[in-house]
């Protein structure tokens, strides 16, 4: 018998949509945690430098360094907003600071914690700034979120995770978004035309 020429199995649960096709806000995901590959490592989240030191009395210097690394990363990679209003909308009242440095002036959320791994490893430790939100409008509310928008499973009381090593990969520097709308003008130009055409699909 010839081999079957159609997909053998389709995960119907994945395809079922209670709310079909609503644009997602920010993907709430736990991909770093849920992946089954076993190169994952233990990571712990601290909300202050002291917490780290109390937890690791024999690694005081590493705590200092990991905290500083996270702070530096935060300055470089944290989400940025043109207005305090936009920032607070995402992170909550009084959760944002004004920054004016050589990269410009903007608002960014305070670092709410830092995630470290392999603190006692002789080769190197990993450290990453984390944020959380107190805003009722945000999908980050009461969750840990990284600079590039990963939201961890579980609420902020959960401090221990197993993560893939790339969770600690340096994030690209993001400066403020200066403009929007540089793509899509051909649609406006061409879709005013025609009547038989379905509402402006650019597929073919």
């Amino acid at each position, binding site marked *: 018998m010839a081999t*079957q*020429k*159609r*997909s*053998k*199995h*389709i995960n119907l649960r*994945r*395809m*079922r*949509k209670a709310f*079909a*096709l609503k*644009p*997602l806000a*920010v*993907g709430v995901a736990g*991909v*770093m945690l849920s*992946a089954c590959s076993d190169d994952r490592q233990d990571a712990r989240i601290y909300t202050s430098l002291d917490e780290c030191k109390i937890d690791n009395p024999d690694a005081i210097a590493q705590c200092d360094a990991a905290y500083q690394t996270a702070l530096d990363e935060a300055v470089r990679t944290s*989400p*940025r*907003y043109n207005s305090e209003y936009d920032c607070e909308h*995402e992170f909550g009242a009084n959760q944002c600071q004004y920054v004016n440095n050589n*990269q*410009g002036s903007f608002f960014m959320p305070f670092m709410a914690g830092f995630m470290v791994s392999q603190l006692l490893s002789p080769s190197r430790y990993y450290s990453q700034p984390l944020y959380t939100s107190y805003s009722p409008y945000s999908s980050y509310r009461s969750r840990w979120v990284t600079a*590039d*928008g*990963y939201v961890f499973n579980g609420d902020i009381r959960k401090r221990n995770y197993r993560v*893939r090593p*790339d969770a600690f990969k340096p994030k*690209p*520097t*993001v*400066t*403020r*978004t*200066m*403009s*929007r*709308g*540089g*793509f*899509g*003008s*051909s*649609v406006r*130009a*061409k879709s005013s*035309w*025609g009547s*038989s*055409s*379905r*509402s*402006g*699909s*650019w*597929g*073919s």
Partner: protein
Amino acid sequence: MLAAEYGFHFHTMYGEPYWDESAYYQFSLAQIENHIEDPTAEIHQMCLSIVDEVVNSEKLMKRFAIPQAHWDFVRQSWLNKEPSLYSRLDLVYDGVNPAKLLENNADTPTSLYESGFWQWLWLEHQVQEGHIARNADQFNSLQEKLVHRLGEIAQFYQVHEMHFACCKDTEEDRGTVQYLQDCASEAGIEDKFVYVEDIGLSENGLFTDMSNNPLLSCFKLYPWEFMLSESYGDHLETADTNWIEPPWKAILSNKALLPLLWQRFPNHPNLLPSYFSDGAHKASSNEKWIKKPLFSREGANISLLDNGEEKVLSEGPYGEEGFILQAYSPLPVFDGNHTLIGSWLVDDMPAGISIREDKSPITQDLSRYLPHIIL
């Protein structure tokens, strides 16, 4: 009801049935394998050989109307072997004679969800309810291959997240992109969405989504010829986004491919004679030719040249970049409907077919979608 459960929102359009499950097409395995699957793989390889030639020739880049400022960008994407996700070859096939290539939708093909998922589910149900024999099959490994390929692409770029983008105000495109997001998710990739019009440019030259996350890897259901000519086109090279489809698809999806194919593989059984319209003296005037713009979507701006007389078949906004001629090969008519076969590839592997039919001889976007079986 079932449609709503799976978010299938575009099964009727303007009151016309778009998805028609009252009927289906039936093929033999030999028809599928010998007449569609094998030629699809071969045509695709022929097309790739043309891409290889075009990126290495400034004269051809010009012929394909690739803006000169982006020649290097397009060429580099080919030399770097940036991975492609999928394409759809549109074929004229009557069930008996060799299938003929009408065009290669290599950049932004749609009706993916109907083909990969909906058609598959339809067969499952028909068989369960005893309407169709249990040993019936379908040429449709699209979803399986898409999931696998998205995983490979994530590996290639060493990423675990991907953005997905389409334009606003089109439920069909949003549906196609959501389907690909679901496939990516199935492959363990984190998917994020941004509308094409909302893409931003950061101070340091990266493209960003609405949360100011950089677009590191992005699937876009938006044609390359538009992106290259729009204002953010100037930032494509420095923004360093891994685009899916890759920039070299600007060549593969271009209708200038058709005359080039005919030049390089003359009289190939699966090709129709084709010429650039300014080389039309080669096209004998006592035959019928279809004139198409280099860039065109949804069958727009097509004319029929009959004995040297031009008759406009469909109007549209395209054509400023030039036209090609292709020998007129009418779609076969079954039961009063003109039938077009869309033959899918995921990367370079044939992955299934979709069938659209229309009362008129040119398949426009309101054509009905019909499922098929192999028996």
